Structure formats: C-alpha cells, structure tokens
C-alpha cells in the first residue's frame, strides 16, 4: 500500500503537466484549505444539533437535507476534490521540502517559531486518519459499502453517532483528533493569508487572532459533542 502510494506520488511529481511553481502549488493548497475551513463551520453547525433534546429529530432533518438537496450533492463532489487536492499537494510539498535538505543538522533547530507550525504534515496525517475512519463510519455506510451496526438503518446517523460515542475510547480518539485539527487550523488560517499575499501590518494581527479564535471554536465545538454523550447519556 505504502509502496503503491509512493510510486503514485513519484509519477505525480514527475508528470510534466503538474510542474507548477512552488508558489502556485501553495496557493492552490491554500485555496483548497480555505474551502475546507468553511466547510468545517457548516459541518459543526449541523453536528451541534445532536445536542438538542429532541431525540435527534432536528439532526436527522438536517442530515436528510444535506444528503438529498441537489445543490449540496454537487458541492459534495467539490468538497471531495478539495480534500484530495489539499492532501495530495500537502504530501507532494512535504516530500519536496524533505528533499531540499538531504543532510540534516546534528543539533535540532532551536529557532523560536509559532507553536507546532513545523508539524503541519504530522497534524495533517492525524486528521487524514480521522477522515478515513469518519468515511468508513458514515459515508461508506450511507452508500452501502459498509454494513451499519446491528439494528441501525443505513441512514440513521443519529443512532450511529450514539452507537460510536458509547465507546469511551472512540470518543477520546475523536477528541484527540480535533485537538490536532485545531492546532493545524491555527497555523493554517493565517498561513493561507500569507501565501495569498494578503499580509498587511494593518490587519495581519487581526487575521491571526481571528484564525486562532475560529480554530479553537471548531476544535472545542466538535469536542463538546462526545463529551456531552459521555457525561450525560
């Protein structure tokens, strides 16, 4: 699997068509990232309906709307493309970055930089693992690739969620992934502005603060749900 992936990646890098400049590649990655960041806000909005005390009725209505509205069906394809572009470019860029320093330092770098900004690949990989799990838990069940848990219909996302969060280990792993997503986003949002060239002394401070607030909100927002189910159900 890893071998196949590395070969695919190599052909991808060598493909002449895709020999874009370092800045172009990063701009595409940033734009895909900005799209994904907006999507997270929408997803969180729907997920928070899980907390309403109506036996999952409002959540199911929203989930039903998301999986039946034709406009959202189209956007789902755009979303998958966004994920693919962001992930593939992230791996390609990281690979190039690693290649640009074939002999490393004996003493690890001690330059003071922003928190974990050097570990975007690592936090990204954890989010990718979560994404794979999330697909097999929900999306593959929906399209019939994976059988739903016993006694639960393939479209009953509320019951599936209850079932998943009934395992404390799953809930803890879920929360761990969102801590890392928050760290990833904290660097990513201001980084996207910088890559797009929108760095200005007048507003960059505000962008950084807003980015941090948004990433904390996303991270905590998603984590509240499993916490609620562990503590109160």
């Amino acid at each position, binding site marked *: 699997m890893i071998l196949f992936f590395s070969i695919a990646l190599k052909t991808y890098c060598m493909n002449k068509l895709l020999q874009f*400049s370092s800045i172009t590649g990063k701009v595409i990655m940033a734009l895909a990232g900005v799209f994904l960041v907006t999507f997270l806000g929408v997803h969180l909005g729907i997920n928070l309906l899980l907390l309403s005390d109506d036996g999952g009725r409002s959540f199911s209505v929203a989930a039903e709307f998301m999986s039946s509205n034709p406009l959202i069906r189209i956007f789902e394809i755009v979303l998958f493309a966004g994920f693919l572009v962001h992930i593939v470019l992230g791996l390609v860029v990281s690979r190039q970055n690693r*290649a640009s320093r074939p002999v490393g330092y004996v*003493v690890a*770098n001690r*330059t003071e930089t922003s928190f974990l900004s050097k570990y975007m690949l690592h936090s990204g990989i954890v989010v990718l693992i979560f994404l794979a799990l999330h697909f097999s838990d929900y999306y593959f069940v929906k399209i019939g690739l994976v059988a739903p848990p016993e006694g639960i219909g393939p479209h009953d996302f509320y019951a599936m969620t209850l079932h998943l969060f009934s395992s404390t280990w799953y809930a803890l792993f879920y929360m761990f992934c969102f801590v890392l997503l928050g760290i990833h986003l904290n660097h990513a949002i201001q980084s996207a502005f910088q890559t797009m060239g929108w760095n200005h002394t007048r507003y960059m401070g505000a962008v950084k603060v807003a980015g941090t607030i948004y990433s904390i909100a996303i991270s905590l927002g998603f984590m509240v749900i499993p916490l609620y189910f562990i503590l109160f159900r």
Partner: protein
Amino acid sequence: MNYTLKIWRQKSAKERGEMVSYQVSGISAEISFFEMLDILNQQLIAEGGDPVAFDHDCREGICGTCSLYINGRPHGPVRGVTTCQLHMRSFSDGEVIHIEPWRSKAFPVVRDLVVDRSALDLIIQAGGYVSVNSGGIPDANTIPVPKHHADTAFDAAACIGCGACVAACPNAAAMLFVSAKVSHLSLLPQGKAEAVKRVQKMVARMDELGFGNCSNTYACEVECPKLISVTNIARMNREFLSAKLFSEKEKIVRDSI
C-alpha cells in the same frame, strides 16, 4: 573562560564528515566568536593539525560572508547579528558549543564549515537587477518616490545574502532572500518596469535550484541578521500571483526584412 567545541569536519565535498571535539581555554568573554575560532586554529596549527575552514570576510556584519549554525541556530544565539558580530560573552563558561555548516541541497559543503552559496547568486542572475543603466544620482524629487516605499525598499535592501533564512527554514526554502531582492527592486521606480518578469524568473530559478517550499513557520525572520520581515514574502507571493494571472502576453515581433 573554557569551552568544549564540537565542530563539523569534512575534508572535501565528496568525503564523509563528522563532528570532532576540541577544547579551548583561557578565552576572554570580550573576544568575538571568530577570534575564538582563530585561537583554536592557531592551536591546531601549532599541534601540526588541520585548521578548521570557515567563511568570514568583513567581520563587521555587512558583507554576508560568514555563516555557521551554532547550537541549533544560524548565526548563533543573539538575534539580529551575524556570526562575526557574536561575542563569547553570549556563552557561559564551560558550555559545549556545536558548530555546523548550513544545510541545504542547494548549499553543498565545500570543506568543514564552508558551504557553496552560489545558488543565491544564480537567483540574482536570473533577474535580480535593473537591465538598463539608470544613470547617476538624480536631482532630488526628479523621480518621485513615496517616503514609505523608500523606507520599505531600504529595509529589504538590507539583506546581505548570507543564507541564514535557508539554514533556519525547516524546508530549506530561500523565500525570504528572494522576496527581499524582489521587494527592494519592485518598490522603486527604476526597478518597477521589470517587476513582472523579474519575480517570475527569480522564483523559477529558486525552484530549479532545489530550495524547499515556504510553510510560513517564519523561522527565517527570527534568524535573519538584518531582521528582514516576512511581509516581503507576502509581497512576492502577491506580485507572483498577479504576474501569472494578469500580466499581458508579450508581442512577438516578426522580422520583416
């Protein structure tokens, strides 16, 4: 004061290198880092050994020749200075000091701590200049330059091309260097005419030479001895994008004769 030095020794580009331990003693806190290395080299020569090769020239922080990755930081622990402006008072007595050459695919080691930084010159050759002779010093205000453009251009022009940004970057990217050069030229009227072509050529050359991609960790800005700001990188990204997206195609002039 006494120090234990662990220095990267490598006879030539082709041979393998390793960290070698040396002791220096009776070092005054007020001498410079290079003077301390000079003492070590005299000691090595007296013992019949091979002195440590390192780059240095002006020793007053303006030429950009010196390098050295000291205890995990390019140009050592003090912010905003080159290695030649570093003094032994910045190290405590008995400290172990690790000295390594700068590491990047584009900066091959020549010998010991000396690396070949001509990749930076190649980027300049790709477009970091004004093609026509812009003449002598013009009379004041014959070419209008807004004050803040002059100031920003001057700040960018302070780049001495030492390559500390590349050495500090986790991706060995040269974005801070290239963006400083792009900025200081494009902000002034003499350089503006070629700005669209320049940024594209310099970025293309930078990519070819094997420098990494910027991931906005801003380690470069922290280690730059001339405190060049990463807003220059944003400016370069902006110029590059608008050049790629909006620049007009050049007319192809056919030979009519």
